[in-house]
C-alpha cells in the first residue's frame, strides 16, 4: 500500500521558492535536501553529480547522513541503482531484500531501510542523482514521485546554468587579469558586484 501524499502543492511551492531564492548551487542543494527530509519525514537526502569519465557519483550536498556513511567508498553509477543511467527513478523499498544497492551493509548500519534515487538530467543527459533515504520500508506515493522528478529537473537546470556561469566567471577572471580590472562583466542579470 502506498504511503500518503507528503508533497502537496503548498509544500512543493515552498520548496521550489526556497531553492529559487538560494544564490548559489551549494546553498540551493543544501536547502533542497533539508526541506525534503522535513517534508517527507525521512532519514536523509543527498544530491550527487555524475563524473562522466569515471561514472562515479560525487556528493554535492547532503542532510541527515553520517560522515561515515557518506565516505563509505566510491559510488559507482553502474553498481549503485543502475537504472538511473537510463534516466529512470529507482525505488528500493526494502534495502534488505534488494540487490540494487552497492553498499547494503553500510546502509543497514546507518539505519537506512529504503532508498529512492531520482536521476538529475539536462537535455536527456544524466548529470547527477537526487537520493532520498528512509529509515523504514517505503512504498513511495506516485504523486510524491512525480513531484520529486520535477524538483530533480529543476536541479538539473540550475546545475547546468551554474556550470555555464562558472565558465563565464573563469573567462572573466582571465580578462580582468589582463585588463587590470577595467573590463567589468555585467552578467548574469542581478549579479552582485
Amino acid at each position, binding site marked *: 500500500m502506498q504511503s500518503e501524499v507528503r508533497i502537496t502543492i503548498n*509544500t512543493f511551492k515552498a520548496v521550489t*521558492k526556497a531553492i529559487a531564492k538560494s544564490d*548559489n548551487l551549494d546553498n540551493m542543494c543544501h536547502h533542497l535536501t533539508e526541506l525534503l527530509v522535513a517534508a517527507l519525514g525521512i532519514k536523509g537526502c543527498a544530491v550527487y553529480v555524475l563524473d562522466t569519465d569515471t561514472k562515479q557519483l560525487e556528493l554535492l550536498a547532503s542532510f541527515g547522513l553520517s560522515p561515515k556513511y557518506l565516505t563509505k567508498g566510491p559510488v559507482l553509477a553502474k553498481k549503485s541503482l543502475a537504472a538511473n543511467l537510463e534516466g529512470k527513478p529507482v525505488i528500493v523499498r526494502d534495502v534488505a531484500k534488494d540487490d540494487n544497492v552497492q553498499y547494503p551493509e553500510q546502509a543497514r548500519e546507518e539505519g537506512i531501510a529504503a532508498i529512492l534515487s531520482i536521476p538529475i538530467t539536462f537535455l536527456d543527459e544524466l548529470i547527477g542523482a537526487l537520493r532520498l533515504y528512509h529509515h523504514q520500508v517505503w512504498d513511495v506515493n506516485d504523486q510524491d514521485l512525480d513531484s520529486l522528478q520535477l524538483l530533480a529537473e529543476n536541479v538539473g537546470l540550475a546545475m547546468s546554468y551554474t556550470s555555464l556561469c562558472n565558465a563565464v566567471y573563469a573567462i572573466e577572471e582571465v580578462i580582468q587579469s589582463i585588463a587590470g580590472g577595467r573590463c567589468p562583466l555585467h552578467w548574469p542579470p542581478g549579479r552582485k558586484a
Partner: protein
Amino acid sequence: MALQKILVPYNFTAYDQKALDFLINTYLNREDVQITLFHAYTPLPPVDFEANPEMKKMGSGMAFLSDEIRRKEGGIQFTKDFLLESGFSPSQVGYVFKAKEKGVAEEIIDLINKGHYRVLVLSRQAAKVNRMFTRSVHARILSTLKGVTVCIPT
C-alpha cells in the same frame, strides 16, 4: 616574537583530519602560534512555516535542522578539544562558527583580512566534477589573497 595567526577552515571530512595532523606535526610546541578553526554552515532555508497548516506540520519537522547546527558546533568544539589534548594551550586555539552569508571562499577571505591571519591551512578541495558546479574554492582564495602563506596537506 610576532604572533603567527593560523586559520583552518574545517568541514568534518577526512581531508580536514589531515589538516589537523599537519598542525600538530608542524606547530606543536611553538608558543608564537594562534590557531582558529572555522566552519560556515548553510543557514536555515527561507521558508514561512506559519503560512498554512501544511507548512506548520513541515516546520515541526524542521526542528532537527537547528539540532544539526548545534551538533556541528559540538563537532567544532570537539575538534578544538582534540588540539588541546594534543598539546596546544587553551590560549592558542579558538574557533569561529557562523552562518554562511556568502560563498565559502568569500567567507574565508573576509575572515583572513579582518583577523590579519598570516597562514591558511586548506584541506584538499572537493572532487573534480563538483568544481564545475560550485567553482573552485581554492582557485578563488589563491587568486585573491596577498601576503598569506597557504598550506594544503595532501
